[in-house]
């Protein structure tokens, strides 16, 4: 024990770090901030440290070459002892990091921590969010599989829509005219050197400001932030009734960080590593690329935006979002901090959470995509064929063979791209059905060139049978009057 003390003194005489470290650790913080609400920032940092360690471990094996990356991932998964576990830790660590950064951001927003004098802390925090998302996207590319390849294609297509410089932006992003070796190499450099460098720098500045300015006090309804008086009030709060950060507050941070690490490890063991999916071979086109979890909402949004609005929203939306986040502390730098008296702030968080959650949920089910194999794998339920005429049954055959089932469901089987047809005969008359099939419209291709008149007649005859037994199909009343009731045969 005496020896250790002597060694410690030997080093401290030369380094002279003991005192500043002790002072930093024991700096006073407001009593109420020793709370379970204040643990997300340190947990995000813990995730980042885990990512650094596991990232370096993966780099020992991974080959950042378009021709070999996929094979090296297979070796990591199957050939190296516990390689799959390190990959799983890195993948789940990334998901947890994004999630915790978002939770941290929501908490800081609801607690008014971005107000005077912590505006710059918030701004650097926004940059940290962007850089974290940048790590998530570039990391997804390094898992160089089909999803990564076509994900790059989506990124390039978006970049190409930037006015004037679009084509150059694509070449700069891909490192050449196509997605190939140069693309993976530059995303490797971004993911391993450039973006982590920025992340470390921003984390340093962020932490420095948290120490210099002090942690945000617990917001009390009615305690208003004013530039003239805040610093004085905060000093009184910390020095009169403050507690030392270590050990009074830090133990909750340590416990929560440990809990997060355990949660990541449990997910890694239970669910395993992410992919890789199929080989990044662009000639294999039987694939339905999807982005990773945190970009699913964007994937869903891209299928719902009307074509004319897509490019402007895609290019202007993110810029507006970032500007709003950066401007927030300047617009609302003073005033009420407590979320109990900031209903619009609470509503904003709820709206964003519900919006992102809904879009993510939709992206997991992709109701907008045709079910590519419904025509051959999902037969028409038998009750739709009982007691039908030969013509109507032939129509059912046309329905399958011409792949109507890929976009239209019957009895909840088949695609959801177009409306379900279980009772289509109630909505459309015979004439309207013929017109819709031949000309399309309302986001449906026209089948006039693909169906013979006989096929169209059979198909419409089948569609006319799609109505509940106790309800009659839609009829054109004026036609009945014009032709005389006897000439229109009811189906």
């Amino acid at each position, binding site marked *: 024990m005496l020896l250790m003390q002597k060694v410690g003194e030997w080093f401290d005489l030369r380094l002279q770090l003991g005192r500043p470290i002790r002072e930093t650790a024991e700096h006073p913080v407001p009593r109420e901030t020793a709370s379970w609400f204040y643990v997300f920032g340190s947990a995000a940092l813990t995730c980042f440290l885990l990512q650094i360690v596991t990232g370096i471990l993966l780099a020992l094996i991974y080959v950042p070459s378009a021709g070999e990356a996929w094979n090296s991932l297979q070796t990591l998964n199957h050939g190296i002892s516990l390689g799959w576990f390190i990959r799983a830790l890195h993948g789940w660590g990334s998901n947890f990091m994004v999630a915790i950064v978002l939770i941290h951001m929501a908490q800081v927003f609801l607690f008014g921590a971005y107000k005077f004098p912590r505006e710059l802390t918030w701004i650097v925090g926004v940059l940290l969010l962007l850089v974290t998302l940048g790590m998530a996207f570039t990391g997804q590319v390094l898992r160089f599989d089909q999803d990564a390849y076509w994900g790059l294609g989506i990124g390039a297509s978006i970049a190409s829509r930037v006015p004037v410089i679009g084509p150059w932006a694509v070449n700069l992003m*891909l490192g050449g*005219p196509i997605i190939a070796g140069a693309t993976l190499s530059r995303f490797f450099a971004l993911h391993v050197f450039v973006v982590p460098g920025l992340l470390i720098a921003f984390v340093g500045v962020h932490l420095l400001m948290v120490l210099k300015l002090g942690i945000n006090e617990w917001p009390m309804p009615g305690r208003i932030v004013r530039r003239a008086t805040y610093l004085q009030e905060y000093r009184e709060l910390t020095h009169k009734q403050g507690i030392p950060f270590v050990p009074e507050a830090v133990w909750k941070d340590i416990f929560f960080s440990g809990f997060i690490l355990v949660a990541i490890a449990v997910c890694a063991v239970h669910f395993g590593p992410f992919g890789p999916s199929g080989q990044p071979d662009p000639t294999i086109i039987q694939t339905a690329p999807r982005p990773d979890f945190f970009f699913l909402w964007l994937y869903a949004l891209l299928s719902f935006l009307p074509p004319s609005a897509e490019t402007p929203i895609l290019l202007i939306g993110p810029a507006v979002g970032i500007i709003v986040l950066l401007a927030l502390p300047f617009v609302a730098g003073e005033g009420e901090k407590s979320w109990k008296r900031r209903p619009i702030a609470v509503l904003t968080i709820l709206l964003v959470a519900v919006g992102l959650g809904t879009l993510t949920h939709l992206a997991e089910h992709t109701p907008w995509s045709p079910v590519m194999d419904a025509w051959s794998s999902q037969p028409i339920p038998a009750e739709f064929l009982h007691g039908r005429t030969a013509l109507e049954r032939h129509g059912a055959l046309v329905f399958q063979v011409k792949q109507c089932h890929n976009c239209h469901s019957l009895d909840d089987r088949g695609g959801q791209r177009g409306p379900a047809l279980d009772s289509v005969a109630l909505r459309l008359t015979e004439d309207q059905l013929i017109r819709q099939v031949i000309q399309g419209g309302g986001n449906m291709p026209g089948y006039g060139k693909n169906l013979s008149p006989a096929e169209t007649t059979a198909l419409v005859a089948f569609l006319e049978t799609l109505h509940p037994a106790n309800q009659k199909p839609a009829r054109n009343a004026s036609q009945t009057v014009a032709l005389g009731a006897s000439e229109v045969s009811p189906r």
Partner: protein
Amino acid sequence: MSAENGISRRAALVKLGMFLNGIVGAALAVPIVRYLLSPVIREKKIGYDSWLSLGGLEQFPAGQTRLATYRNPVVNSWDGETGDIACWVRNVDDQTFQVFAINCAHLGCPVRWFAQSNLFMCPCHGGAYYQDGSRASGPPERGLFQYRYKVEGGRLLIKAGEMPTPGQPVANKAGGKTTCS
């Protein structure tokens, strides 16, 4: 040595040193920026945007649409299979062909051909195209991208070398027309 004129010799030397470093930095920045921008300002390499064979005409029967692949004209040895690109070849009447890029005109996903319904469908966001490549439905704003082609010595050649993207109407002035409605 002393600061008689309000500026000491050493302060002046510091400024001069910073100025010289500024010049050196600027001079170094030029090649660095040039290096970084090389994918953009590259000269047309030999073989880039060249005629590539998709194989003999017998592979593409009249009235049908078939998948074809080619090796990109500019590749490095470490590109692996990413240098192989697929495209759809439609033989209209043995005289006229259409060669469509595999990339959806919406966001570049690989479209699939369905001969039964004569439609191209995209698995990502549900874009659909008619057999002539024109837009049928869904989010795409235009028809499929088309490569220029020619028939030479019984082989089908196309001009390719760049991934087609919506903002980049390079390879395809003859892009599919959009339908009304």
